[in-house]
């Protein structure tokens, strides 16, 4: 009898342990691009509710979204989504969160109150960014697969894919909606091209109305409109691959820039350096601009910091210089001092950031540190 009890006890313990292991591994995500499981959530992007009270952090390796109360700065919950979430956006009433699951090719619809996924919407290849229309009735999803050239449009009243915007270039990576809601600027990171472009889309007709190539550009990562709608800013890297690398001065095989483009037809385009000699901004990533249009914030993923630029000064540079003069500043490693405000060290691998509605706080998710840095901005 004792033996039997012992055996059944051991058996139960073994089954329980196996079940626990199964539960843990079934819920665990994996490291990007691999099937190696990881306990690290790897926060990749962050969005903020319209009232500024809730933060949603998309965990790329965790395959989940973590909610944070912005006032108390406490984690309030986590919801499992699908593989490799890379971006999210709140609905205008803050009750729903839309999450791009890059590797599952889908968008999760999450009820914020109950913290549950209510629907999964299939979209194109590798959805990596999502933005809402001004009235909140549509969500625009960048499907960034190397051989994909669409922005999928989700009708948020039915939560269904309603239409598809075709682009002339592959790899749409991020999209920004103009302040008046009439136009979108979509950056296309087309593999193989050395002059990657921003496509301007008329949102009434869903047609591309303008295409602005950025000369010698790669790794376009983020785009924002200035609050007055007169400019868009784009983070990207500039490859110097027309030279043998031994001829690239100071090892500047890549430089790191922000492109500022006048949105009016045939407007000027400045390729402004973020680098200084011996202090480059390797791999600039997410962008944000405050509601007053005063400061531009750039998460620098490779150098673990946030670079803050004075957008008023950038605007002055745009107005007071000809296109030819602007072109001459592109490789000037002193030029950043004209508009650099500060470089703020944060955690490891900051990828995306979000500003509070008043622009006074900047929330930065640090991929490798598994945390969010809260920056009090200069405002």
């Amino acid at each position, binding site marked *: 009898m004792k033996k039997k009890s012992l055996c059944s006890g051991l058996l139960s313990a073994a089954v329980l342990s196996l079940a626990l292991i199964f539960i843990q591994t079934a819920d665990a995500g994996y*490291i*990007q*691009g*691999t099937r*190696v499981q990881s*306990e*690290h*959530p790897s926060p990749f992007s962050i969005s903020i509710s319209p009232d500024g009270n809730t933060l949603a952090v998309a*965990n790329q390796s*965790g395959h989940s979204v*973590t909610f944070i109360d912005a006032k108390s700065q406490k984690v309030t919950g986590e919801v499992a989504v699908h593989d490799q979430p890379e971006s999210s956006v709140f609905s205008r009433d803050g009750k729903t969160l839309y999450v791009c699951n890059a*590797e599952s*090719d889908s968008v999760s619809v999450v009820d914020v109150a109950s913290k549950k996924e209510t629907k999964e919407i299939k979209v194109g*290849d*590798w959805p990596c960014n999502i933005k809402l229309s001004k009235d909140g009735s549509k969500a625009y999803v960048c499907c960034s*697969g*190397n*051989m994909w050239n669409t922005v999928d449009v989700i009708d948020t009243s039915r939560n269904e894919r309603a239409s598809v915007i075709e682009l002339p270039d592959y790899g749409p990576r991020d999209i920004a909606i103009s302040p008046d809601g009439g136009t979108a600027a979509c950056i296309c990171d*087309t*593999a*193989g*091209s*050395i002059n990657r472009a921003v496509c301007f889309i008329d949102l009434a007709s869903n047609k591309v109305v303008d295409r602005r190539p950025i000369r010698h550009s790669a790794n376009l990562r983020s785009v924002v409109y200035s609050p007055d709608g007169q400019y868009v800013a784009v983070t990207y*890297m500039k*490859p110097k*691959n*027309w*030279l*043998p*690398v*031994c001829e690239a001065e100071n*090892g*500047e*095989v*890549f*430089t*790191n820039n922000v492109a500022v483009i006048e949105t009016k037809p045939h407007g000027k385009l400045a390729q402004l350096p973020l*680098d200084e*000699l011996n*202090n*480059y901004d*390797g*791999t600039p990533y997410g962008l944000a601009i405050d509601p007053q249009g005063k400061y531009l914030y750039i998460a620098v*993923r*490779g150098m*673990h910091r946030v670079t803050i630029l*004075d957008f008023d000064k950038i605007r002055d540079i745009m107005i007071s210089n000809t296109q030819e003069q602007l072109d001459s500043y592109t490789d000037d490693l002193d030029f950043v001092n004209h508009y650099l405000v*500060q470089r703020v*060290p944060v955690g*490891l*691998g900051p990828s995306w950031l979000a500003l509070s509605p008043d622009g006074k706080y900047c929330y930065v998710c640090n991929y*490798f*540190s*598994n*945390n*969010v*840095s*809260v920056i*009090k901005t*200069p405002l």
Partner: protein
Amino acid sequence: MRKTIVFLAMAALMLFGFTAVGDVTAGEAKVVATIQTGPEWTPPERGEPLTIPEVHYRVKHSPYRSELVRSGQFLFNDASWGLQGEYSCAACHYERGQSTGLIWDLGDEGWGSWKNVKYIRGGRYLPPFRHEGFTGHPDEIVGATSSIDRVCGRDPGFVFRSENWSADRLEALIAYIRSLEYTGSPFRNADGSLTEVQKRGMKTFYDPKVGCANCHPGDPMDKRGMFGDGQTHDVGTGRVGKYGFRSTPGAVFNTKALDAGVDPYGEEYDVPIIGLDLVKEFDTPTLRDSYASAPYFHDGSAQSLIQTIDNSATEKDKHGVTSHLTEQELQDVVEFMKAL
């Protein structure tokens, strides 16, 4: 009374003025809080750098321990170990392990020989790894690249210009690169089967008269099907100079550009500049994930899949015998390749 009003007005103005100045003067930005959402993590120590040329150093084939792979992922994305923090591995291979599709003259086969950035997902499955197939041993440093030798600072370290790495950090980076998996095609039916067009393309692909499967064998329904033979072949993409292979290091010849009157060093040119090659046989790449690995061939001379088989980027009928195929048949083969 009047004096009092003037005094009050001036005081109000001064107060307003000071407030306004306070509003526009930039304060210093600073991190005021950190919200931990997962385990705290620190990167691997820099360690003692290797002093022997890495090409002679072999990293053991470590199991894909999660922490090791994650450390490698960090190093892959970290720019701070370069000379000035200019860029990381992910600048060329993307944080997804894919490719920017840029071509570079890295000097690894002598100057003047531009090479297409390799798509490195699934790279461990099909050595050799370099375009020329020079690196064959799967446990060789990043085998997927003896170029990591240079990346990590062998010779002058042309690329990153950093110090040599320690064995631990190399092991982590290699573990990450080796653990990258193919993404799988988004172009198949939802149940993973081939579409009708893809099936038509498959028939042509396996036609012995066309010959694609001679060097790219595989079964599309078998996840282990690599669609590569691990050999090198001359498929008419080697750029041979007037007097044979490249003899002048650094000399760049782009006959099409020169004929068209374009300065091959000019910044206006939107097509890869083609250098001259050291050899004319190149490693057969896998066709898995070929939908995501454009441009194609060792020098990126085919911008799209159709250009790999329509004889526009190769000598006629040297990369498969395809000149007798109709446009539709060629397009079907492209659709089949996109499904792999």
